[in-house]
């Protein structure tokens, strides 16, 4: 049998498999989108990483990191970059300036106490607020992230704090700092939050853009692999250090990080606060449940 013939047969077989194995979209009216399979189950808790990259024990406890790993360019990714969380370089990095700015802005916005009330802080107490966002807001009729809430509540005071802007992220950083060390704790077991988590999970595996990559093409299938000079890490435990100081980005909110990952993977990015990014935020935040908030952090 000729080689060419076998290869034709392989192609034909591949096509048949493809036609039979296409996963059906949830809604028949939805456009057919390829998924990166399998669509992992994911645990809405940071320990779920034990079944993904297995690196969690190495970064679970910030005070017991193995600094020899941090010094190794081949292995430092196993620490999920947690060695750049505070008290790292506690002297001065841009995150500390942003924190001061955020505190000043917050005080000015909350002179009447209405800003805190709008954000949903009980009796103006910000402690723990960060750990319970994103949340479903009945007044807005949708699930919102903290930065979207900040934008909304600032607008109610007649101030423009666009989602993703430096000042918005600075206020978010200040609010996060008052939950320092408290574990992220969002509930995705029911209602609109559960629906958002499920949409986020599916989006995380949806292929898009010029290269037809999904988030999971990198963050599940290729954890620890090197892509264009950086090692890819687990999606578990990422949200606890946002907004984060980055040299080129100054202050980067989670939605801006999603834009960066989209651009790097050749996917048309969306505006911060878009529904799809908020769904991904719910999904990623659930994957950080149980991990302590640690700000201000820096990343390369």
């Amino acid at each position, binding site marked *: 049998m000729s080689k060419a013939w076998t*290869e034709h047969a392989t192609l034909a077989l591949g096509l048949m498999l493809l036609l039979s194995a296409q996963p059906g979209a949830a809604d028949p009216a939805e456009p057919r989108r390829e998924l990166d399979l399998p669509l992992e189950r994911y645990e809405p808790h940071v320990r779920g990483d034990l079944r993904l990259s297995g690196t969690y024990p190495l970064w679970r406890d910030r005070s017991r990191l193995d600094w020899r790993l941090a010094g190794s360019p081949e292995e430092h990714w196993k620490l999920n970059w947690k060695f750049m969380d505070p008290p790292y370089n506690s002297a001065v990095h841009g995150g500390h300036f942003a924190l001061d700015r955020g505190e000043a802005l917050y005080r000015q916005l909350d002179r009447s106490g209405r800003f805190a009330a709008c954000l949903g802080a009980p009796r103006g107490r910000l402690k723990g607020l960060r750990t319970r966002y994103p949340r479903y807001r009945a007044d807005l009729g949708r699930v919102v992230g903290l930065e979207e809430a900040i934008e909304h509540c600032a607008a109610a005071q007649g101030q423009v704090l666009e989602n993703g802007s430096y000042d918005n992220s600075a206020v978010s950083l200040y609010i996060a700092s008052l939950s320092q060390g408290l574990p992220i704790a969002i509930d995705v077991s029911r209602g609109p939050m559960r629906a958002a988590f499920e949409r986020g999970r599916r989006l995380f595996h949806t292929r898009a853009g010029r290269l037809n990559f999904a988030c999971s093409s990198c963050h599940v299938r290729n954890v620890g692999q090197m892509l264009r000079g950086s090692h890819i890490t687990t999606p578990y435990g990422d949200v606890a250090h946002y907004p984060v100081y980055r040299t080129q980005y100054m202050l980067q909110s989670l939605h801006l990080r999603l834009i960066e990952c989209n651009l790097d993977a050749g996917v048309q990015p969306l505006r911060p606060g878009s529904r799809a990014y908020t769904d991904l935020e719910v999904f990623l935040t659930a994957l950080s449940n149980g991990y302590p908030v640690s700000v201000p952090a820096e990343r390369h």
Partner: protein
Amino acid sequence: MHLPLYGLLFAGLALCAWAGDWPADAAVDAHAPTRTLTPKVVVNSGRLAWEPYKRDLTPWPSLSHLDRRPTPPPQAAGFTPPLRGDVARGRAIALDPARGNCIACHVLPGEDWPGSLGHLLLGYRKRGHSDAYVYQQIYDRRLINPNTVMPPFGTFGLLTEQDIRDLTAYVQSLD
């Protein structure tokens, strides 16, 4: 909204029949040279600035719930011999981050900074695959492996037919 002729605007873009409108929540300025925008954080400002991105990403599906475009389905390449590929040009395309960028995932000879996602392509010459088979791998590997991470360079209009011929010649030449 009107349907612009993406194919003409995009250098080297093959037929791009799936291209439609981008969704309303995409970071796009229809009048910017490449349409796609990238955010710029302005210190001590409540506004987020946007700059033109180096590349137009609007022709391909995004993650927006408002994006109605399907994933372009896998295509057979329909390769016709003879190959007429240029090994040196193929190598240049494989190493060029703006074009093939095969080096991002494949270990190629003589390069210091290989990616580690893909297979070793070394020794391909001895494997005795037909040109048509190799051409199809680059054109759209989804026909062979529906769950591949390798981009469908032909179907998605990322490389021209001649580019893929040159790359096929290059891959087939690797010891």
